[in-house]
């Protein structure tokens, strides 16, 4: 199956979409650059933005590439390449793929159990689950940004950027909306974190339960595999080391690699720990 998932046809399908999105980026960049020049933004600032963004993006992109490698063993190379080049993010993609694998009746995201139907279902679920940002943009971005502009009109009229400042006040949203949202914004961040804590807890709990009561040998028989729990522990330990390096050495760039790097370290541990079973 994995050979079919790495076939030239899949590279062609996924590559065509990636190429189209790349062209969209070029198109938007050219328009923004021209508009910037036309409304009087210093060209050196525009060039500085491009250079700063390109250099900033290199390290995280390498981290994302490691994610493609991590997913390639179970989903082939082309599909993770597409998902992580366009729309997706490593942690989202992996979680959705795992849930989809369960929904189609697999034990988990695994190349050895993958079938054509399972793959196409997983691919569809990954596409649908993480498309909502784009859907909201299509239907509400114009209205949302217009409302933000209206909310900040008074402020923008006195903007030192003159015409550009007035017309472009939608970005002011950060200021105007922050004040409006107040208390809600405070809990919004915490709710998002809590939601992910719940998600992670469900899976860690399942690894624990799978080891203690799994394997069909009865409750508290310790008949299941301890490998997923051990691999999760290795992932957590690796993440702790990355966090320590980041904090002690004040190396913010470590963040770009911490998730993908921790995953690869834990996966390497799985190879050695697997031999103990």
């Amino acid at each position: 199956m994995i050979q079919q998932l790495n076939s030239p046809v899949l590279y062609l399908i996924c590559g065509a979409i990636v190429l189209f999105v790349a062209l969209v980026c070029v198109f938007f960049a050219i328009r923004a650059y021209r508009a910037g020049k036309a409304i009087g933004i210093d060209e050196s600032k525009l060039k500085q933005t491009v250079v700063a963004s390109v250099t900033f993006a290199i390290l995280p992109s390498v981290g994302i590439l490691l994610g493609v490698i991590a997913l390639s063993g179970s989903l082939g190379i082309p599909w993770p390449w597409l998902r992580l080049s366009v729309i997706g993010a490593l942690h989202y993609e992996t979680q959705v793929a795992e849930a989809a694998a369960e929904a189609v009746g697999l034990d988990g995201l695994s190349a050895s159990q993958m079938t054509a139907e399972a793959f196409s279902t997983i691919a569809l679920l990954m596409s649908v689950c993480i498309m909502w940002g784009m859907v909201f943009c299509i239907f509400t971005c114009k209205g949302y940004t217009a409302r933000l502009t209206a909310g900040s009109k008074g402020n923008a009229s006195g903007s030192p950027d003159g015409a550009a400042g007035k017309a472009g006040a939608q970005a002011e949203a950060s200021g105007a909306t922050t004040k409006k949202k107040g208390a809600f914004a405070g809990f919004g961040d915490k709710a998002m974190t809590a939601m992910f804590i719940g998600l992670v807890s469900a899976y860690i709990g399942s690894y624990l339960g799978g080891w203690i009561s799994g394997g069909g040998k009865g409750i508290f028989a310790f008949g299941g595999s301890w490998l997923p729990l051990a691999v999760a522990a290795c992932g957590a330990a690796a993440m702790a080391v990355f966090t320590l390096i980041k904090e002690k050495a004040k190396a913010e760039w470590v963040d770009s690699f911490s998730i993908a790097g921790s995953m690869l370290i834990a996966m390497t541990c799985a190879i050695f720990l697997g031999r103990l079973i």
Partner: protein
Amino acid sequence: MNEEAKREYYERYIASIHRLGRIMSVIVLVMLLAAPFVIGAYLGAMPNIGAFLKGFLSIGLVYLVSCIAEYLIYVPMLGAGGSYLAFMTGNLINMKIPCAMTAKDIVGAKSGTAENEIISTLSIAASSLVTIVVLALGVVMLIPLQPVLQSPSLQPAFDNVVPALFGAMAYKYYRGNLKIAAVPLLVMAVLFILVPGLTGSTSFMIIPSGAIAIGLAYLYHRRAK
């Protein structure tokens, strides 16, 4: 160009960005939704809609809520052009948002200005292109490595991608939030130990687990006020 002409030009630019952003987003969306069916046709098996719905009910709703929150928070930061591009190209938290904010700081663009809109769009377009190029080069280099990646000795690694991810995320999210994390983790562990059959429905268990964590977070949030 005088100030009035600049303002008119910029308004036309924003209108065209919305028009193009919508058109491009619809095209990309259709391509992304069609791809699983096209791949399914090639592989000889279409997606299983029943399993898809089951999966969507378990995890899709979680991401729907997450996407709403991200949309409401990030659009004001990114402006129109930046938002269309960022939601199309993904990797928001780990790249696009910090990249756009860094570019904005470097050039000293103020929030609420056209400069911010332009800088944000340029920054996200440039960073997206870098990711696309790096991944494309990486994939080309990975192709010869396929036999190695498919070797049986590496299978335990690829069979444990998800535990590896959740271990790393557990440290990230539990750290500093142990009071919130302890209860859902304990409840889930006890449930999975006492009802081993639940292991096949872990993604469904995200809903009660998430509800407990959000409830606790709200409780602590209210207490802290």
